């Protein structure tokens, strides 16, 4: 598969949490060549299945979310749009952003700022509260009320680009780069003998508390589930004790209460056996990924989070590594083929 083009297709799509129907069909399309069956369900979760051929087989669920953080229109002030956040938007990133207002057809917008000339010295160093910002769509009040109903979602507007030989920058790399990594996994599983059915899921509404993955997992009823999400890669400001991952040094296997120790052990073994570089991270809580939601559905699921290092998370310019995506895809493919007896008895 063409990784950059798949990323471009998905990351440039505009689908804030709750509006995944805007990207779900495209995600299904990218996954489709590598699975036996793929569909978009009633909650806009994308679900692909690779069958092992055995009756009543166990089920592995690999899940990456397809929603993105965004904004939502809450009102109109002299033609400009008031808005609130959908998911954990960093308000420091908002002033002077280009956005797409997701009406039909979509509108360009800019988040306006006050010129520095008229600010006091103190104001120049302050971040502006979201309540004080507006989206300018170049309309009068009357036109704006008519064209942009309250409740309209808004997405950041970034075109994907590459830098150097290995890095990609775009909005929504969190978490569509992980979904593309799962498509790589699916591609690698072609003609491989599997001990279980593998479900590859693009989940909705993760940014609001795994609201898509919880019902998706209920429906699939997996024996083991691995959430694939982004984690923080090194940036110049981090301290050594922050224990962040390094970009382009491989996927990050999580240890902690939100991870089934048998799955953690198996992933490490698989990485070593197949010489796939990986990193380890500690998550002392239940975790903030789909795995935390899936762990406690039905009578419980053995879960794990495997992460992709990412710089500048939750900004409109998230930076990731193609090398990491390939390594992540390979690690999960080899795990799916040979999880080991301990995991298969989970």
């Amino acid at each position, binding site marked *: 598969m063409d990784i950059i083009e798949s990323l471009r297709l998905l990351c440039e799509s505009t689908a804030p*949490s*709750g*509006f995944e*129907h805007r990207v779900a069909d495209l995600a299904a399309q990218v996954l489709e060549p590598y699975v036996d069956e793929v569909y978009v*369900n*009633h*909650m806009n*979760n994308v679900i692909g299945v690779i069958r092992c051929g055995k009756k009543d087989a166990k089920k592995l669920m690999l899940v990456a979310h397809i929603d993105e953080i965004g904004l*939502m*229109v*809450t*009102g109109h002030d002299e033609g400009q749009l*008031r808005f*609130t956040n*959908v998911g954990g938007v960093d308000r420091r990133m908002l002033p002077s952003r280009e956005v797409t207002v997701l009406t039909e057809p979509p509108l360009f917008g800019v988040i306006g700022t006050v010129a520095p000339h008229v600010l006091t010295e103190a104001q120049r160093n302050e971040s502006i509260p979201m*309540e004080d910002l507006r989206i300018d769509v170049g309309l009068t009040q009357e036109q704006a009320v008519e064209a942009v*109903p*309250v*409740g309209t979602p808004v997405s950041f507007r970034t075109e994907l680009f590459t830098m150097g030989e290995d890095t990609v920058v775009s909005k929504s790399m969190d978490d569509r780069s992980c979904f593309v990594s799962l498509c790589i996994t699916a591609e690698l599983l072609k003609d491989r003998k599997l001990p279980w059915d593998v479900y590859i899921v693009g989940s909705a*509404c993760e940014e*609001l508390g795994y*609201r*898509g993955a*919880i*019902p*998706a997992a*209920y*429906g699939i009823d997996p024996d083991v589930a691995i959430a694939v999400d982004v984690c923080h890669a090194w940036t110049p400001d981090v301290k050594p004790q922050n224990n962040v991952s390094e970009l382009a040094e491989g996927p990050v296997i999580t240890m902690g209460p939100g991870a089934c120790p048998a799955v953690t052990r198996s992933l490490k073994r698989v990485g070593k056996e197949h010489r796939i570089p990986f990193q380890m991270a500690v998550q002392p809580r239940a975790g903030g990924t789909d795995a935390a939601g899936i762990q406690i559905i039905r009578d419980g699921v053995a879960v794990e989070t495997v992460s992709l290092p990412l710089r500048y998370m939750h900004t409109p310019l998230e930076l990731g590594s193609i090398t990491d995506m390939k390594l992540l895809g390979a690690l999960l493919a080899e795990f799916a083929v040979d999880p080991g007896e301990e995991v298969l008895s989970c």
Partner: protein
Amino acid sequence: MNTFEMLKKVCESYGPAGREAEIRKTIEKLVKPLGYKTTTDALGNLICHKAGKGVKLMFAAHMDSLGLIATYFEEGGQVRFGCIGGINPFRLLAASVRFANGVCGTVEKDGDVDFKDVTIEKLYIDLGVQTKEEAMKLVSVGDVAVYDSPIRLCEGGKFAMGAYLDDRAGCVAQLLAMEQVKETENDLYFVFSTQEELGLRGAKVATFAIDPDYMVACDVTHSDDSPKAPHVGSCKAGCGAAIKVMDRSVICHPEVVDKLVSLAKEKNIRYAMDVIKAGGTDAGAAQLSLDGVPAGGVSMACRYTHSPNEMVSISDVEDCAKLMAAFAAAEF
């Protein structure tokens, strides 16, 4: 009984979260003539069913209210309490309250506490007694007090004010919708849910049991009409049925939102789009149930929610009822 009289009857019934027996009895009586089969589940949800072969639709309005649960008696008979549901301590100062047995009191702060430093721990209920022994004859640890503000019709007849319009106004809208709904193939469930104020707990189990195709919650939403309002919501009391797009618990399924908007336009029902930055509704629990339920909401913009004197427009209640009745009979 007109809408206001119904509001008065339903709002003034006792029923804090977890103790919904009395309010359930009140609502059951009002449901009785409407021809629904009613059941009560283990969490106390009142589930009203009219069977049909078509799409399974679930509506829910929560019948529980906030409350103050007695925890400790001071020597002078003052009752310390914990909150059932989200209560701002400033809203409680000087509030009239009553317990299930009719014992009434007022909420006050400790003598050494400045108004701006008030927290729940520094408040007590004064039952009008002088000793612990007297107080303990009237009330026991674990008894729950509710606001004792009657429902009144404001001058001009447009607004009702009083306690627990959140969400007894929703219960009334749902009762009106149950009465108005036309002949339909749809399989209809109207739930008067419990424990919403504790985190949408009744609706969670009710949705699991019903397994609906679509769910609509009827609740109150924020009314953005105080002077200098910071716009935490998009609707104002009197705007008609507030069609929910997002609150803290849910981003409504676009299919449900679109259906409600198109029905409102088709039937000429006043409506506004509702986005709030705080608060949740039963729709939030329903969407996560089973393998996911497409959920939405219709709400009444309510002033001063969770205070002893909430305010709701009576025509908004009626508009919500019309929209729910239209949704109940709609084709999917």
